[in-house]
């Protein structure tokens, strides 16, 4: 006997507000904070030693990956626990191209992007039928399967199997007085900025509005003529593209890829970063990236034996203070200005 019940819509499931008025009207504030951020970001390598620059580069890489996830979950309302798979795909694409075909590292980024876009699109197609929890499980399955597929013996010739692939770190152009770490930092920063601007333009465009309409009310969106299948799959593809490029960058700066680097733990980290930054708020990605990279270190500093517990406690406190992430905090601050 099949009974019927009401289901929460995808929009409710993701449940974020649309871009609040205070944030849009705060255009001048956004501009000023953007400039401040840029100034701070550019000056980091000048004041910190190489290891810290390396950490900040990693932070930017995670931020790009979280940006990708945000496009899918925050803007389009599709839940994904599987982004570690796209990150891995991008990383391995870059690694194989650099190691076996001696491709210049710069070209691996668009290559990783294209490969991941196709993969994301193809994954998005059957995922169209799945909602909420079920989509979560499908992406979960993807995340679990990824390390095991990477270890498969028939593929070992390409992937290096469990041993992974070691990559040579690229050198900065000879006409710049930078060392490797500093160069990679600026390179990653430039890529991150470009990707952010593209994402922001996408969200503000008609396509972006269509994606958000699908998130908030799919049935109304369809009745307004939006092609759900196309847009949802495109969202998956684009999101995968971003995360794939992040993966490629990650591989280059760590100089190593192996199946154990890309487990479910990574997907969960992206999700945590997404929520901490603010679901649906693109700049939140940088907060998310910072959280994911630095807070585990802080937790370890507090107590080595209980580092996981400290991390969990910090996370819960953060959610209590900012239930909607950094986005909520910024919104509250801005509305205080307007009030």
């Amino acid at each position, binding site marked *: 006997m099949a009974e019927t019940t*009401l289901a929460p819509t995808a929009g409710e499931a993701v449940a974020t507000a649309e871009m609040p008025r205070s944030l849009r009207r705060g255009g001048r504030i956004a501009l000023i904070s953007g400039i401040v951020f840029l100034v701070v970001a550019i000056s980091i390598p000048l004041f910190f030693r190489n290891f810290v620059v390396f950490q900040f580069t990693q932070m930017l890489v995670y931020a790009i990956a979280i940006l990708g996830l945000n496009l899918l979950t925050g803007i389009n309302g599709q839940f994904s626990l599987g982004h570690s798979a796209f990150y891995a795909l991008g990383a391995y694409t870059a690694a194989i191209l650099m190691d076996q075909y001696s491709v210049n590292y710069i070209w691996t980024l668009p290559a990783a992007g294209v490969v991941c876009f196709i993969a994301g699109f193809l994954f998005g197609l059957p995922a169209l039928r799945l909602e909420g929890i079920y989509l979560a499980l499908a992406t979960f399955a993807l995340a*679990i*399967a990824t390390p095991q*597929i990477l270890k498969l013996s*028939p593929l070992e010739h390409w992937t290096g199997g469990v041993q992974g692939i070691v990559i040579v770190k690229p050198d900065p152009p000879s006409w710049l007085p930078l060392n490797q770490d500093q160069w990679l930092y600026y390179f990653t920063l430039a890529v991150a900025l470009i990707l952010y601007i593209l994402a922001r333009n996408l969200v503000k465009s008609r396509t972006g509005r269509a994606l958000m309409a699908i998130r908030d009310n799919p049935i109304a969106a369809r009745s307004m003529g939006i092609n759900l299948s196309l847009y949802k799959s495109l969202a998956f593809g684009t999101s995968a593209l971003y995360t794939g490029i992040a993966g490629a960058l990650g591989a280059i700066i760590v100089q190593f890829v192996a199946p154990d680097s890309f487990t479910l733990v990574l997907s969960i980290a992206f999700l945590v970063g997404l929520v901490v930054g603010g679901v649906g708020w693109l700049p939140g990605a940088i907060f998310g990236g910072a959280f994911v990279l630095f807070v585990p270190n802080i937790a370890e500093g507090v107590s080595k034996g209980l580092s996981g517990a400290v991390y969990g406690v910090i996370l*819960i406190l953060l959610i209590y203070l900012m239930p*909607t992430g950094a986005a909520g905090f910024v919104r509250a601050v801005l509305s205080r200005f307007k009030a």
Partner: protein
Amino acid sequence: MELLGQQVLAGIATGAIYACMALAVVMIYQAIDHLNFAQGEMAMFSTFIAYQLMLWGFPYGIAFLLTIVISFAGGVFIDRVIFKPIHDAPILSHVVVFIALLAILNSAAGFIWDFTVKSFPSPFGSSPLFGSSLISAHQAGMVCVTLLLLLFLFFFFRYTRIGLSMRAAAANPASARLVGVRVGWMNALGWGMAAAIGAIAGILIAPVVFLEPNMMISILLYGFAGAVLGGLTSPAGAVIGGFTVGVVENLAGTFIPVVGGELKLPIALMLIVAVLVFKPSGLMGRTVVQRV
């Protein structure tokens, strides 16, 4: 052929583990309408509590009952205290708090009891069932207990007032309040029951896989898979799903050449995803209709 039979039986035995976990997962889903990622760690922690009680000298039966009571209370506590402040927050924030809970429980268990494996006794003994070499008494016992739990839940939700109130509170909190159901406490009850079922699952599973803080992580995966396969709204489906996952996984590992052994879990998961594509609410779940 004999190997096939053996693998199926072994799959049912392992599947009992997954079915147990899947039942706890469905239980919490029925109560609060989303998945609890920390379910496995809660079950693990409960099992450690039972272990500690037995170390302190309590006999198995008493330790078992005490653990269930403590776990029930723990579940209620988590709902009423930890989740209360973010009651109105979006779902993803809830998910992140689950993840935080997972980290805390895992880390605390490792700190208190360390990470080496410990043996855990079984009330059924570990000798083979009726001398058969295929399934041990414990594993058969596990299957029975799972089915008994299932029966209990079925009657509880179908035929008792509280069960009905819980279903109402989960399905439509606003309307339920209007007819006098105390939704908040129904949720808490759901959490408590889920925690208790998780504890039973953990206590049954530990003798087979050995007790250690990381024991539940992969089992939770399989439990989710089984629960979703069977349909998250159906406890019976969850149990069937759990057994199915166990059997499919074993058969895939044994009979698919070259990659079978290396891809057991992904194959099982992919099959489930395939089922979902054709039947989005699982094999026995209720079809969900969206009103425009």
